[in-house]
């Protein structure tokens, strides 16, 4: 089975801190995604990557950056955390083509105080 693992389920950080959210997948997927999930807004794409060192902005990239140095790992970075970044963050991976399906991690509930 495909496994997508996010480093933390719950995280509490202070305003202004630099925050790293890590995501690892074990199925050699080309695509990796970071979403933010808020009630009533569904899943909004922050960034995605279709290959090592490649990244594309999604719908809400402001205040975030990403890093993909290895195929299996995709990191989301909050450069200076703010209270409006309190949210659920979901990582996903998929093949680029063929039998396409998004596999999700368990989510990280980030609270910025």
């Amino acid at each position, binding site marked *: 089975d495909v496994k997508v693992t996010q480093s933390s389920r719950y995280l509490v950080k202070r305003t202004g801190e630099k925050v790293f959210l890590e995501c690892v997948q074990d199925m050699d997927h080309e*695509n990796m*995604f970071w979403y933010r999930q808020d009630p009533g*807004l569904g899943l909004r794409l922050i960034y995605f990557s279709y290959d090592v060192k490649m990244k594309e902005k999604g719908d809400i990239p402001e205040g975030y950056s990403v890093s993909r140095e290895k195929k299996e790992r995709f990191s989301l970075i909050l450069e200076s955390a703010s209270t409006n970044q309190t949210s659920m963050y979901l990582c996903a991976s998929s093949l680029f083509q063929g039998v396409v399906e998004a596999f999700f991690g368990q989510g990280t509930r980030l609270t910025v105080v």
Partner: protein
Amino acid sequence: AQTVTQSQPEMSVQEAETVTLSCTYDTSESDYYLFWYKQPPSRQMILVIRQEAYKQQNATENRFSVNFQKAAKSFSLKISDSQLGDAAMYFCALYENQFYFGTGTSLTVIP
């Protein structure tokens, strides 16, 4: 621009009954994928059913089936013989090099 619309924020169904969740989407492509994902209260998002746009036959997975109307850009999910474990948030999604998600429908199953 690609959009996915779920117009029912909340739905409820009696146990053992059938419920249909609605989804419409917009795309200019002819080749794409559509999905329904389920997110139970435990949060792990899992795939319920997938439909390739080039296939005319509606996908089915046990008690779950879809009504795919390509011309109308409609993709509804039918859950038959609803069970308590079906209670969850359901998201409709479109894939064209990236995934586009709707805002979700919260399904309650009444015993």
